[in-house]
């Protein structure tokens, strides 16, 4: 809310600069901004009195003026419509640098000398107002510093938290300012004359349910003349961010901003039945509101009715047909307290929010209803030529009385960590206008005022104490009382170690969006149906994702379109599937996915040509991860399908926990990718469970390493992996390992056969191995290979 400081000063005196006040209010809990940057030329400006003015001889719209400042008299040619004898304004003398490009100089305007400029607000950067030169009060001294005047006329902007409806008003901010400056603020009186037959003879009020509308008050003001608002009123509203419309609407808005109590004005001649009836709308009932839109109502809308005919959506917006128009003379003022819940529902359902609904749904002051009613009646009498009818209606069947709250100083001290005394607390509560009754040395019974609906419990009062004491003043306690907390698992260290390996293998970690299209591609291990969002941002983000791979492909595509074609990506993230048995209706998995494309070795002077990425690079990376090294995860060849051109399944026991392979070109095309992509995804929850720590030192021998090769010819349909697994499973009484080194077909190898070369490494433990021993090992290897794969030694 915008707070125009001269208006605020109508209720309270303070000497703070706008910046200081904004800072103090912020520290008291209302975040407040003061935007205006000080400009260097402000100190050149002068208060000026127009001592004479006459029409420019050669230009109809220009005026020749003599102005007086503290520095002397100056001739000024002025184009503003509001310049007149005797007024005071702001003068920019010769030499003032208004903008980097615009410096005031002595010059002739249509033949007449001008020795400076009377300025409008926009010309010195105060606002966008260019309607005329700035008007200062008649009492402003010529010697007064313009910088000071600007500060006094500043607007600050507050961002009020939803628990503080009282701060959505000038009274509220005056009250906070009074607390800060240890002073009081005063409300204007609401006196005015009343005449004529009592209001009760003309109108009655019937509240269908006092729970919806605990209080409803109204008054009649007659003989009103609709006209533009006086200048001061227009200025107050515009500076507070409200458009000026006419005197009646403006005065109603004035009281709204002043008190925080929303008011509504009806043209009483358009209320035919003589009865205001407050009831819930019927489902499907239609209503034409002030914004000229027709709304379809539900039983969650509270309606103000003329008899049975709706004339306003209570607390939200008035109706087109009963509102004040230029012909209105007889006004019914409504001032009510509507229950916050119903107004919020009503406004939410219609998608219609207003300055009124904003305040009602947060809770206005039930005891402020009458003051605001009287205040508007007074102002209509004073500024719209109205005469007030005798009496008012005030339907308030069950007065709202705040519950007394028991407050213990010991409790406050225990929560805040400061030793407050009874006197200190008393003083704070006095400033806050609480009614306090001391019960013991520790306890008091507190009744907060009705304008503070947020104060219901002891803890709410404790917050008030720390707010007034100043959070800044609470001394930080850096003692850490250590109770060691055990981690629920070692999961995070597994995440870390997997990530480390991936970084070492050149993979960048990505973050992709967890939402996807409905028919997402490429599910690997998630099998349940997807989780739809009922109010998605777009159809591309309508479901929770079931695979990370589409996100990775989009990221690859994004980079390809920027001419980056060598990419290794991985991500560990959450996948989702529907689970009707879960309270969240969803089951979540951690998944680990990756995708590579482009070159493995980039172009470089040391190599003949770049080496492209292949499926086996990916396989090599995966094989290096712990769950594979512990042999709890296996890779098994699988049949290619619609997504995968070549495919392996990652198995844990009998369960498929992931897939890796080569993605099909047609799929990649739909992501605008025109080069080969190798990808994997696996269930990371399973991975973590399987990655048990089995590390035990294996003996390290210092005897020499001996290696022997076998080139074995067998049926080409036998997978090398099967042979390798067989050799790996063999045990010898020494250190032993085996590598596959070469594949060959053709030449002397018969059709349908292939030659595979393996290299076997042996190292004796505790002694050197003899040739005879190694020959024995090799015979054993050949024997099992002959038996299982019918190999022939080449």
């Amino acid at each position, binding site marked *: 809310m915008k707070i125009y400081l001269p208006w605020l000063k109508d209720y309270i005196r303070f000497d703070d600069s706008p910046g200081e006040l904004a800072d103090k209010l912020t*520290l008291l*809990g209302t*975040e407040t*901004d003061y*935007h205006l*940057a000080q400009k260097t030329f402000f100190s050149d400006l002068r208060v000026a009195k127009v001592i004479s003015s006459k029409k420019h001889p050669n230009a109809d719209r220009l005026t020749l003026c003599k102005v007086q400042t503290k520095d002397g008299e100056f001739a000024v040619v002025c184009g503003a419509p509001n310049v007149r004898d005797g007024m005071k304004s702001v003068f920019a003398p010769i030499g003032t640098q208004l903008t980097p490009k615009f410096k005031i100089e002595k010059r002739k305007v249509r033949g007449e000398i001008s020795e400076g400029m009377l300025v409008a607000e926009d010309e010195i950067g105060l606002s966008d107002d260019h309607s005329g030169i700035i008007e200062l009060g008649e009492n402003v001294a010529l010697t007064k510093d313009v910088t000071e005047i600007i500060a006094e006329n500043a607007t600050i902007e507050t961002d009020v*938290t*939803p*628990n503080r409806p009282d701060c959505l008003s000038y009274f509220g901010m005056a009250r906070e300012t009074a607390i800060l400056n240890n002073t009081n603020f005063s409300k204007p009186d609401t006196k005015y004359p009343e005449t004529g037959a009592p209001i009760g003879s003309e109108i009655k009020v019937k509240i269908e349910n006092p729970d919806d509308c605990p209080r409803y008050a109204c008054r009649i003001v007659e003989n009103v003349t609709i006209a533009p608002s006086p200048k001061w009123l227009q200025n107050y509203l515009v500076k507070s961010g409200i458009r000026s419309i006419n005197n009646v609407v403006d005065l109603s808005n004035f009281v709204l901003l002043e008190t925080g109590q929303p008011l509504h004005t009806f043209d009483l001649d358009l209320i035919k039945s003589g009865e205001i009836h407050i009831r819930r709308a019927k489902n499907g009932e239609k209503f034409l509101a002030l914004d000229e839109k027709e709304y379809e109502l539900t039983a969650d809308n509270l309606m103000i009715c003329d008899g049975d005919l709706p004339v306003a959506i209570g607390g939200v917006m008035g109706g087109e047909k009963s509102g004040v128009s230029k012909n209105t003379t007889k006004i019914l003022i409504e001032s009510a307290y509507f229950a916050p*819940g119903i107004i*919020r529902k009503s406004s939410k359902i219609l998608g219609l929010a207003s300055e009124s609904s904003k305040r009602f749904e947060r809770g206005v002051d039930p005891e402020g209803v009458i003051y605001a009613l009287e205040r508007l009646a007074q102002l209509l009498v004073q500024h719209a030529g109205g005469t007030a009818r005798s009496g008012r209606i005030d339907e308030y069947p069950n007065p709202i009385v705040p519950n007394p709250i028991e407050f213990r100083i010991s409790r406050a001290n*225990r*929560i*805040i*960590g*400061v030793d407050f005394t009874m006197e200190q607390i008393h003083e704070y509560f006095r400033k806050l206008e609480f009614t306090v009754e001391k019960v013991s040395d520790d306890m008091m019974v507190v009744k907060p005022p009705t304008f503070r609906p947020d104060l219901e419990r002891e*803890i709410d009062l*404790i917050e008030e104490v*720390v707010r007034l004491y100043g*959070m800044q003043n*609470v001394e*930080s*306690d*850096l003692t*850490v009382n*250590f109770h060691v*907390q055990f981690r*629920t698992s070692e999961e995070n260290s597994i995440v870390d170690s997997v990530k480390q390996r991936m*970084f070492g*293998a050149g*993979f*960048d970690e*990505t*973050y*992709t*969006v*967890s*939402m996807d299209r409905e028919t997402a591609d490429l599910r690997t291990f998630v099998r349940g149906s997807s989780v*739809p*969002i*009922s109010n*998605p*941002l777009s159809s591309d983000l309508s479901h*929770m994702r079931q695979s990370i791979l589409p996100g990775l492909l989009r990221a690859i595509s*994004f*980079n390809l379109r*920027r001419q980056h074609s060598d*990419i290794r990506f991985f991500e560990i993230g*959450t996948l989702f599937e529907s689970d009707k048995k879960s309270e*969240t*209706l*969803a089951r*979540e998995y951690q998944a680990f996915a990756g995708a590579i494309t482009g070159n493995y070795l980039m172009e470089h002077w*040391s190599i003949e040509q770049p080496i492209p990425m292949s499926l086996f690079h990916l396989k090599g990376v995966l094989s290096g991860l712990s769950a594979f090294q512990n042999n709890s995860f296996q890779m098994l060849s699988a049949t290619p399908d619609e997504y995968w051109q070549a495919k392996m399944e990652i198995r844990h026991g009998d369960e498929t926990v992931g897939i890796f392979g080569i993605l099909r070109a047609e799929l990649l095309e739909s992501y605008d990718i025109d080069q080969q992509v190798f990808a994997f995804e696996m269930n990371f929850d399973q991975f973590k469970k399987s990655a048990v720590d089995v590390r035990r030192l294996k003996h390290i021998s210092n005897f020499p390493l001996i290696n022997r*090769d076998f080139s074995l010819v067998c049926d080409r349909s036998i997978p090398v992996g099967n042979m390798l697994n067989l050799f790996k499973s063999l045990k010898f009484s020494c250190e032993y390992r085996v590598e596959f*080194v070469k594949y*060959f077909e053709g*030449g*002397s190898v018969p059709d349908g056969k292939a030659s595979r*070369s393996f290299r076997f490494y042996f190292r004796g433990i505790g002694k050197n191995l003899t040739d005879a021993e190694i020959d024995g090992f090799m015979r054993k290897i050949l024997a099992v290979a002959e038996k299982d794969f019918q190999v022939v030694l080449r």
Partner: protein
Amino acid sequence: MNIQVRIKEIRTEFDSEFSACLSLEDFNNLQRKYLSRKGIVASLFKEIPKLSADEKRSAGKHLNVLRKSVEEKISEAIQSFQKKKKIDLSMDVSLPGTPEIYGNKHILSQVMDEINSIFNEIGFSVETGPEVETDFNNFSSLNFPENHPARDMQDTFFITKDVLLRTHTSSVQIRVMMDKEPPLRFISPGRVYRNEAINARSHCMFHQVEGLYVDKNVTFAELKGTVEYFCKRFFGKDVALRFRPSFFPFTEPSAEVDISCFLCGGSGCRVCKHTGWLEILGCGMVDPNVFKSVGFDPEKITGFAFGMGVERPAMLKYGITDIRMFWENDIRFLHQF
């Protein structure tokens, strides 16, 4: 046997042996076997004189072709083994090094890891929870009344009326408090969702780290100490802090924490909107209603909670101007951090 046929056979044999060679030693052996004085090729040449004149010419021609091809293949293979040595001799050490490809941890992971480790130092463990949550865990138990404007502070993605995408990781606090007894001290980092348009300043998903400390006598003064420790460790020990009263449904008293702008040193700049302060964290004392909803007695237990975004401090600290960059995965972005 016809010499032509033998030449052909030897050719096939050589090719297969050649392809089986793995080491320099293998190739040297092969060279000896075929090209030495007593080698296979030489022995074939020795048979030429026994042939007829016509056969001589043709066999000589074919044998020469065979010898030349065998020589070339072997010497090329041997040279390729020796090539590296040759470059060594003429080495220009100013040549660029062989590019080693390192992968990079995403900047958000780096920031979250740093936050986690700072809190680990002062006794906070890490807890996580699901991203699809119940309204109870995300709102009701955290003292968000139904039909209250406080819910408007967070635009929510709904799955059903009672199930939603969590709008903050405070839901994890509820889960842990339901499950365990005080004392509890942990942080909960994770992804959260808000139904907001995607633009340079906001995204429909981001990350949060929230913390909770619950015990018999936890005070607001301790909250200040903890937050101060974190901010100074994370942003630098010279930053000043400002606590100002605010409102969150799940804490009372509630505070918003600003740090002095580390870009302008507090004198005011575009990033801090000329206030000299940057809003960084929300915190407060756990509201008694939250304790009641998880079955703790607020008369016996007090506690504090705090929460902060991860993207925003990362953007401030590293000068990232567009929040969408975190999700685009442009490798030029990923490699910068």
